[in-house]
């Protein structure tokens, strides 16, 4: 296959970026999209040009590092896969493919297609956990959990934190990501003691990071490579509302250390 690529090039966070056109040839349909980029980069290096920076690691769709906005869609034309799982057989010979980074105020560009998603880590640090120190757990089977709840919690926990939801959302909202973690813990008995403080703290941090709000278009759910459901947002909103009504003035969670 021969393809024309228009790729976003940006030296660093401070400089301006632009789309640059490249030609690649002899691309096998069995290659993954990232392997096609490997080929392009080898070409650029041998020509003495700067290779294109992109994030990637596991290349099997689970680490959440790869993050390309391909032809206007997060992770490209297929649903339910990450960029690294997209194969060239999804394109046709002669296609022109536009590749951009995730675009959101809270995800500043580091270089080319690489963005800074540390905002997600900071949100988790505000409450995406159960405060249990190592060594203080009781026997695992002493906490029976209805299979349905465990399965639902697992489905929410399957989020890989790639940020496709944010990149897709016209408001750059992170609510699918945040609600997935809140839901996972809200569905489990272990998550109950901190349930309402958690949602308040995480939402507060989410707002601070500059993510937008949810206007229920559901694009995030469509583009999520792990099929995280919009129901999670509903659950988060319900918990947030309840928390806002019942909670006393804010206290830091995560206590008990030292």
């Amino acid at each position, binding site marked *: 296959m021969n393809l024309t690529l228009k790729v976003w090039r940006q030296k660093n966070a401070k400089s301006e970026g632009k789309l640059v056109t490249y030609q690649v040839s002899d691309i096998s349909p069995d290659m993954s999209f990232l392997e096609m980029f490997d*080929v392009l980069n080898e070409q650029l290096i041998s020509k003495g040009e*700067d*290779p294109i920076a992109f994030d990637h690691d*596991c290349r*099997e769709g689970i680490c959440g590092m790869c993050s390309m906005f391909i032809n206007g869609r997060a992770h490209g034309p297929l649903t*339910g896969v990450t960029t690294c799982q997209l194969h060239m057989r999804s394109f046709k010979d002669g296609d022109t493919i536009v590749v951009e980074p995730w675009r959101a105020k809270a995800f500043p560009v*580091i270089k080319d297609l690489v963005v800074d998603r540390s905002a997600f880590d900071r949100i988790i640090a505000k409450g995406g956990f159960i405060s249990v120190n190592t060594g203080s757990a*009781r026997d695992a089977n002493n906490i029976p959990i*209805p299979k349905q709840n465990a399965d639902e919690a697992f489905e929410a926990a399957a989020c890989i*934190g790639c940020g496709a939801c944010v990149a897709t959302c016209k408001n750059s909202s992170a609510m699918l990501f945040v609600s997935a973690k809140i839901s996972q813990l809200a569905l489990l008995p272990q998550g109950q003691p901190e349930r309402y403080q958690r949602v308040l703290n995480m939402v507060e941090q989410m707002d601070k990071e500059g993510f937008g709000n949810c206007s229920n278009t559901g694009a995030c759910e469509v583009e999520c490579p792990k099929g995280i459901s919009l129901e999670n947002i509903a659950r988060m909103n319900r918990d947030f509302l309840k928390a806002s009504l019942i909670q006393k003035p804010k206290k830091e969670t995560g206590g008990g250390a030292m």
Partner: protein
Amino acid sequence: MSKLDSKIPEGPLEQKWTKYRSTVPLVNPANKRNLEIIVVGSGLAGSSAAATLAEMGYKVKVFCFQDSPRRAHSIAAQGGINAAKNYQNDGDSVYRLFYDTIKGGDYRSREANVYRLAEVSGNIIDQCVAQGVPLAREYGGLLSNRSFGGTQVQRTFYAAGQTGQQLLLGAYSALQRQVGLGNVQMFARHEMLELVTIDGKARGIIARNLVTGELERHFGHAVLLCSGGYGNVFFLSTNAMGSNVTAAWKAHKKGAFFGNPCFTQIHPTCIPVSGEHQSKLTLMSESLRNDGRIWVPKKKEDAEAIRAGKKKASDIPEEDRDYYLERRYPAFGNLVPRDVASRAAKERCDAGYGVNATGQAVFLDFMYNMKEKYGRAEATKRGISNPTDAQLKELGKEVIKEKYGNLFDMYKQITGVDPYEEPMQIYPAVHYTMGGLWVDYNLMTTIPGLYALGEANFSDHGANRLGASALMQGLADGYFVIPYTIGAYLSTEVSRMSAEKEKPDAIDKIKTKHPAFDEAEKAVKDRIEKLLSINGTKPVDYFHKRLGKVMWDKCGMARNAEGLKWAIEEIRKIREEFWKDVRVPGTNEEFNPELEKAGRVADFLELGELMCIDALHRNESCGGHFREEYQTEDGEALRDDENYAYVAAWEYKGDGQYELHKEELKFEAIKIAQRSYK
């Protein structure tokens, strides 16, 4: 030879850990706040250690090269985590897990470490469940288990095909909680490029900020390497693209011995190589062998027809199929350990029975269990008395989907073939490295104050790791071992600090001004400048691929003296060429992934040689190390316990020079025997 002291506590095996844990020196809470610990790597071992040490009150700094600690490659572990809970009432016990692990490792691991691993395995499950890790459950609300290779009990806990992800996110949550509380400082997109030692003790690291290129100095009273394995030395492996040996290798060159470097795990069930362009291989979880039967055609002409695309698996009648694992190993069948299954696949393919275009693949077939095991059970449940074949398949498919759905989807995505209809094609691939930095019972390397945890150390898996034991070991080391054993060293640091009136780093920035930091930083800087100045003609990957091919051909599933000797020479040549002709674009002062890669491949080019040296010196076959010269009549690994029942710990002695030290392995609780799964 006397340099290695494994520090195994005295006393009977089953009391060693309990007794040691109760007597190991403690550090009082006020002093903990003045002690800083550096953790390199944020996978299961790193995250769990960092979170736990921070909970205890130590000041912790964590480094990872990815953009977030949650990306570490533990995330990709699929199948499960072992624990001796005996929830299935099938006769499991701490002893049995211990025994299976020692035997699975072909009697090349340390009894005391493995017993401790088995002892704490149950606590890991408790801890993870308390954190909200959604492990699979039965309808009664209790935890579910499945079987893995090398065992006859069901002790593997799992979360669909994403167990590693769920456990890592649990540890990551615990870590982020400590970050939020200010007890852990997180340095993502940072890579450790040198270890700093002062007076022979680990005192800190030089890390490169991967975004700006800046070299940073970080002081620590102890340094924990939790940086994973080195399977990427083979170029193609199931590891993530960024997985590397650099942190461990730098430590090795500073004096940490490297244990059993040639012990590599080749995983039997991976998606076969499809072409030259391939950048990595994808694992299909071992759990699939619970329900998948492995076979090749009995007749060569059938295999040829399949390779030529003239026949499909479903065209081969039952009686013409060779379920070779069930045939050779009736007691364990498809659930033999990984090294055994891999070698058996290679044997069949080498004999001409391989099934894909390259002849390097075997079938993993679910149809029988889909219909007969699950389909029939479902039919009975629903009162369907005479189910048709199509009904059985449809009913069984639902069950298979629930158990392995994401793996089946992944397979289809990569190969374009629907595994619900046609069997999977699989072939062995590099997956895990049992070798690693040599550590004593405390997990300390031969450099005081430097520890290695998880896959980065050599300790628990001998010459072959059993499935679902890597997650167990990473979390055991991080949650339950290091928090205790580190006290043995740090308590001495407390006395030293008070004698020397050393102030905590927060008040006193002087420590990183020590000449040892100057020296280490200069070494890193010089090397980076050298890499950038070569300006040769070939990209880094060119050399990495060449190294990988040599390693796979000569130091892979089967090895022999002649091939290894050739490989050592060849690797030296590639290394020489690399330093003359590699092209690394860009500068240091920017985000430069090619520069990162160049540094890692340069280290692989040294490690590869040591692996071959180790493989060549070990004149026996054991576990994943199969020397063609040493095999039984029916092609099984032939150990030499008289001469090789030891850990080979290599000391770096300058470019390409290594000195061998031996740690004798004593088996007191287990009678050493020929490993049999027949």
